[in-house]
């Protein structure tokens, strides 16, 4: 008996709908069809009138969720692909993210973003948007890497009185399995040391956690113990856990699947350089995708994003410094 990351997303929504009548789910093709990835499979039947197909109108979907939240509902909005949230960008960053600060009105909405690349998906079905949204005040940005986090963090998101951008990784949907959803362990905002080590720290999140863990396995055969920190939440960012890890290892590599310019990895490096410069034995490094749109063909796609191989290469350079 095992459960997948996608089942965690589906079951968390089931539980949210079951336990709170103010929760509803709104998104394209999520009703009877159960969603493009089947993350809402069967929910429309179990919760009539609360799991609804939306027109292809990302702007109106988010605006509608904000209005509903003001009125006491706790909407979950599914973007069919993270990439399409750009059409709802204005409502996310200017409406939802400013509401509490401007008007003292909580805005409990969860926007689910099926994120990241899978081979063959191309430039408009592969994007990672966490850095874009993290730039704006007033949003919480979550990037679960495990089945347990996908389940518990989604439930936490719906209970939170602030807008949450929930970046769930499409690559993990079917491949990542666990025995169960486990226990609710860490609160939102806390990072997790996914693997302890002492020679170098890899700070990463979402699907790249698994690539980093494989790279750590490989480096172990070369005699290095690599610590892997899973951010879980990119905003707020658990700076203390990052600094603690760097204090142990003295070396830092940040890995992210998103585009290289600015972003989460630059933010981690900035914080470590400012707060822990004296702890560093080597210049901090980062590894992101290439600075081009995301390619379609698997050969190009694999070379575009960080992989076990490129993470290993980066770590070897970091360790040799």
């Amino acid at each position, binding site marked *: 008996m095992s459960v997948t990351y996608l089942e965690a997303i589906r079951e968390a929504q089931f539980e949210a709908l079951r336990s709170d*009548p*103010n929760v*509803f789910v709104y998104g394209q093709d999520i009703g009877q069809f159960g969603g493009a990835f089947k993350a809402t499979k069967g929910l429309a039947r179990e919760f009539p*009138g*609360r799991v609804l197909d*939306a*027109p292809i*109108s*990302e*702007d*109106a*979907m*988010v*605006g*509608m*969720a*904000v*209005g*509903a*939240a*003001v*009125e*006491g*509902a706790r*909407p979950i909005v599914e973007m069919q692909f993270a990439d399409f949230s750009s*059409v709802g960008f*204005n*409502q996310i960053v*200017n*409406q939802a*993210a*400013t*509401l*509490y*600060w*401007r*008007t003292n*009105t*909580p*805005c409990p909405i969860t926007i689910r973003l099926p994120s990241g690349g899978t081979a063959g998906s191309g430039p408009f079905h592969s994007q990672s948007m966490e850095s874009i949204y993290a730039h704006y*005040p*007033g949003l*919480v940005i979550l990037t679960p890497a495990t089945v347990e986090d996908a389940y518990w963090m989604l439930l936490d998101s719906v209970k*939170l*009185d*602030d807008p949450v951008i929930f970046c769930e990784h499409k690559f993990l949907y079917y491949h990542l399995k666990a025995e169960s959803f486990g226990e609710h362990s860490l*609160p*939102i*905002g806390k990072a997790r040391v996914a693997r302890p080590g002492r020679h170098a720290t890899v700070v990463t999140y979402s699907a790249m956690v698994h690539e980093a863990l494989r790279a750590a396995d490989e480096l172990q055969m070369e005699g290095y113990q690599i610590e892997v920190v899973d951010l879980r939440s990119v*905003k*707020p*960012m658990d*700076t203390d856990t990052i600094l603690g890890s760097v204090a142990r290892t003295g070396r830092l590599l940040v890995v992210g699947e998103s585009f290289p310019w600015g972003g989460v990895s630059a933010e981690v490096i900035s*914080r470590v350089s400012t707060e822990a410069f004296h702890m560093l034995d080597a210049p901090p490094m980062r590894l992101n995708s290439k600075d081009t749109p995301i390619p379609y063909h698997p050969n190009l796609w694999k070379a575009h994003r960080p992989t076990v191989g490129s993470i290993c290469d980066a770590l070897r350079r970091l360790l040799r410094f």
Partner: protein
Amino acid sequence: MTPAVPITCTKADLTPDFRDQYLATYRQMQSSRVLEEKLGSLYRAGGRIVGGVYLGRGQEAFSASVAMQLRRGQDVYAPLIRDQAGRMAFGEPITDALRTYMGAATGPMRGRDGNIHRGRPQEGEMAMISHLGAMVSVVAGALFAKRLRGTIADAVGATSIGDGATSTGSFHEAINMAAVEKLPIIISVANNQFAYSTSNDRQFACEDLIYRARGYGVAGWKVDGTDLAACLKVARSAVAAARAGGGPQLIVGTMLRLGGHGEHDDAAYIPDEVKFSKVGQDCLLVAEKFMIAEGWATKAEIDAWLKEARATVDQAVSLVSKEPIPDPYRESWQALSSSELVESWQL
């Protein structure tokens, strides 16, 4: 298509109940004009008003007519830039306007946002963002939630927009979505001929914006926005239709913005032939003539109301002028309601 004919009032519409609402609406319009004249003076004088001033001169009849039909506490209202009269009709206190314009710490926006970007969402008055068209879906969402939670009864939502904002994708998405959900929303389009400086002929190519109602599958009402009697008749009918389950109602009113986009703008781009045409007449003067002709009010009564409105506004200005401005030291600088998730790292 046949030209869209605006709905007008006949003698039969002028019931005692209608007269009472007409007079009450006129007084809101008059108070709004007085407050806005004061805001304009304060802006020109410099000092407490730090940002721009955006007035609804010429749109009072259209704006107030819809808001007069709403019930604060049950209905939802998302006013836009030129809805001072509507805001007053919905029960927004004058002090909310002054405190927001003057950035007083005591106001609903506490110096965090200014001028027309104000509201009390938890009382059903949404606080507009500047991005046009964006409030339509928010009102739709509030109505959706009322329906979901079983609290809707016969509540409605109303929002305003201008001719320019009908060009946004946000407007299109939201009115279409509201139509799909058959929500009781009233969308008032004030076609005041100019979006900032851009005239209708550079904004849209359809013959009349009212024709869009059919395309969206919603009810459409066209009205002369300078004629309070016609505006009230249409607003009463449209709001009643929404309350009765008739779905979204699109009202298009025509008038001229009697001033610039803001007080910084002299609107020299508005041609005289438009200014001095029927569309350019002042709805307050039209209403005064009408009330006197119908024997509903005398010139002396109207003047007395004006005096009263001025005294009320002067009193409020004097009160708010003495109120504290925001103190950056006491500001929480917290964009999330969940305090435990606010990063202390950079502070």
